[in-house]
């Protein structure tokens, strides 16, 4: 079952194309990460999905909705820099948000109390004015207001980008918990965050989706293994030797470590180890690592 189907979505500002003819769909109970560097069109895509922007071309279908339906009640949205009525207390703002989403006063009050616990806003802060909240508290309150009406889709724009490590941990943990119940679509330019909680990835670059799929699928497709070599003496002397070995595709030196990519790890490993044995290389460390999502992304972008 698909929850959202986006077809040929294009968004232009004047002659500037920010989102260029993208299509994708996703089902229920998934956590989808929209990944891309700053300026890739992530925010515009999310805002258009949330109904804040109108597509220049293309359609967004929500379940079997028609274009005339108000799909806002099924969507929860948190912008990257949420602003609140900061003269309200956290609880007041949640109740207000709930009532706007057509909950009754009782429902909204009950749900607000629940969510203040879920997003871990301390008892003494719940009835304090939002103007006194920290950045992390505001972000968590933002998530609470976005899910107060139990939407089917939760859209989050860079939910952890502005948070310190502790706040980031808390929010990612919260997403992990929420994705059991709600489909989450979130954008990030930090790939580790995507790696941590998402099931599916959409890679956005210059307004286009250049790759999509589950994390595992993309891993298999773009898998490269990187070997890292460290020696006691000058590493540059070894780079030329290694670079001339069969099956070595690329070498580079970063902070005294020689990184080697190859299309046949086994052969290269054997070659290096036997060389090291024969020539008595003063190796301090030799390791084989999986490429990070970051490397993968660079690879996709560069292709």
């Amino acid at each position, binding site marked *: 079952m698909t929850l959202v189907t986006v077809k040929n979505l294009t968004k232009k*500002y004047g002659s500037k194309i920010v989102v260029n003819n993208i299509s994708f769909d996703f089902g229920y109970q998934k956590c989808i990460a929209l990944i891309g560097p700053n300026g890739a069109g992530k925010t515009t895509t999310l*805002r258009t999905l*949330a*109904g*804040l*922007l*109108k597509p220049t071309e293309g359609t967004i279908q929500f379940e079997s909705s028609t274009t005339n339906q*108000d799909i*806002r*009640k099924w*969507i929860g*949205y948190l*912008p990257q*820099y*949420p*602003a*609140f*009525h900061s*003269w*309200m207390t956290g609880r007041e703002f949640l109740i*207000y*948000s709930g*009532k*706007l*989403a*057509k909950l009754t006063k009782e429902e909204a009050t009950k749900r607000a109390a629940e969510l203040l616990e879920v997003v871990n806003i301390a008892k003494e802060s719940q009835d304090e004015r939002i103007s006194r909240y920290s950045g992390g508290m505001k972000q968590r309150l*933002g998530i609470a*207001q976005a899910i107060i*009406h139990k939407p089917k889709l939760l859209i989050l724009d860079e939910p952890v980008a502005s948070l310190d490590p502790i706040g980031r941990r808390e929010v990612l943990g919260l997403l992990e918990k929420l994705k059991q119940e709600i489909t989450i679509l979130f954008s990030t330019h930090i790939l580790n965050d995507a790696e941590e909680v998402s099931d599916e990835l959409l890679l956005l670059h210059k307004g286009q989706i250049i790759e999509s799929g589950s994390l595992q699928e993309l891993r298999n497709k773009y898998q490269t293994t990187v070997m890292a070599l460290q020696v006691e003496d000058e590493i540059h002397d070894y780079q030329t030797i290694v670079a001339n070995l069969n099956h070595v595709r690329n070498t580079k030196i970063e902070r005294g470590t020689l990184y080697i990519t190859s299309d046949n790890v086994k052969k290269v490993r054997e070659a290096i180890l036997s060389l090291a044995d024969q020539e008595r290389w003063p190796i301090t460390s030799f390791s084989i690592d999986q490429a990070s999502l970051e490397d993968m992304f660079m690879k996709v972008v560069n292709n």
Partner: protein
Amino acid sequence: MQWMTLFQKELLENWRNKKWIWVPLVIILLSIMDPLTTYYLPYIIEATGGMPSGVVIEELPEYAPSEVLLMTLSQLSMLGVLVIVLISMGTISGERKSGVSELVLVKPVSYMNYITAKWVSYLLLVWVSLFLGILVSWYYINILFGTLSFGDFVTTFFFYGIWLTFVVSLTIFYNTLFKSSGLVAFFSILSIMVMSMITKIFHHILDWSPNNITEYIIDTISTGEISKDLILTGIITTALSLTLILLSSQFLKRKEMAG
């Protein structure tokens, strides 16, 4: 009901930011300033050292009650209108600028509810303030200058309220056009000034321009009967206000709330 939710939020906001306290007080002050200073003018002249020697004033002019009421309304039309524009200049534009409107309008909120809840909440504040202002002014005029009937008070309050309704509607309208509250205030004041100039220049054609309402109120009080001109001007001003609010909601709906 969603409209009530939005309306209550406006009332609470204007209570917490003290508008419900200071706006009525300022309107009352503006309303009684002229009756009082006019009455005590001789004393003020005396206290500030009297008239320069050689200037002899037989007697300061006597003012009719309706003339003093006109002074109150003129004061309200200058500073009162300015205050009303300034308190409402950021009601939508400010929310759009800060981004809080994004959180509100991404919920299934009707644009018409959003606009009219704000409109009615500001009208309530303005009408209550005006009621108190005109009431106090009416009381002072009765004590110091002579009789104005209760009917005169009601007529003044009601029809002048229609003019201020137009001012609020105009400001709300510009709120949907600009994100900068400074621009909202500038264009609201500019529009009122331009309307007033046009009304003066084409006075023979524009009989029922909203800017004439004060004049007709005073005419009505002097002659003692509600003129057809006053009623028609009232109807036209109300119609213009409603049109502005309808347009506002249309503009906001078409406008993209983000960016």
